[in-house]
């Protein structure tokens, strides 16, 4: 009984961290894209240009949110397996395109939507495979695959 409530609490916690991660990354990406388009100088190899771009408040906010997103993802990986995290967070690609359209007024063609959905499906498929396929298990894995 206690075990059951504890595990459902753990699941709820994991999903809240997933939502927090997706929100932070979406906000970070949007702020970064918005801010970078206001920076007058075009970026090149010169690192000083990037440092100056970080003075733009939206770029700075974007970087802060993306750093927090990275830390949240690390916390998420300590709660759940990568084979859970990758497919679940693949929805981030769809969210980014949606925000590009709604917030940044980008034109998203039908072809781009189709591509994004393929990427979402592909990322979910790649992520959901077992990571246990290293050469040590080569012989047994070859026998097991049918």
């Amino acid at each position, binding site marked *: 009984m206690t075990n059951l409530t504890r595990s459902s609490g753990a699941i709820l916690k994991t999903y809240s961290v997933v939502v927090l991660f997706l929100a932070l990354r979406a906000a970070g990406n949007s702020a970064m894209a918005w801010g970078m388009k206001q920076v007058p100088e075009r970026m090149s190899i010169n690192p000083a240009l990037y440092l100056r771009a970080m003075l733009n408040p939206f770029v700075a906010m974007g970087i802060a949110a993306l750093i927090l997103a990275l830390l949240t993802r690390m916390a998420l990986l300590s709660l759940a397996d990568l084979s859970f995290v990758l497919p679940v967070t693949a929805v981030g690609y769809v969210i980014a395109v949606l925000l590009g359209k709604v917030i940044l007024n980008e034109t998203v063609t039908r072809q*781009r939507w189709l591509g994004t959905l393929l990427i979402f499906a592909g990322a979910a498929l*790649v992520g959901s495979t077992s990571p246990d396929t290293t050469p040590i298990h080569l012989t047994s894995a070859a026998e097991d695959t049918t």
Partner: protein
Amino acid sequence: MRWVLVAAMVCATVLADLLQSHEMKRAGEQSVSARGLARLLHVIAQRRLLILGIACNAVSFFAFMALVQTEPLSFAVPASAASFVLETLLAKFVLHEQIGARRAAGALAVLAGVVLVGG
């Protein structure tokens, strides 16, 4: 130019992942407490490849900044998924991992998606 930036971003991401997972596995398990973080910084300072991995992360991040300056977010973010394709190729040809049908299908779907998103 957009594909040059995508390539730089994706290659740097994959290289960073490879270096970091290789070095972190050799460094052993790390905890996320305050003391654990201090030890993690110590581990990072001692391992050159780990520093190189973090530098690759920075390169990938700068490439993303340059990419969203000139390209729409609805291109930049989906295009970054090309890392799945490169990772799968490296896993097969460099790390000699067995690539299952599911993973191969997933990587192909991502590849087709990136081509469509960029078209």
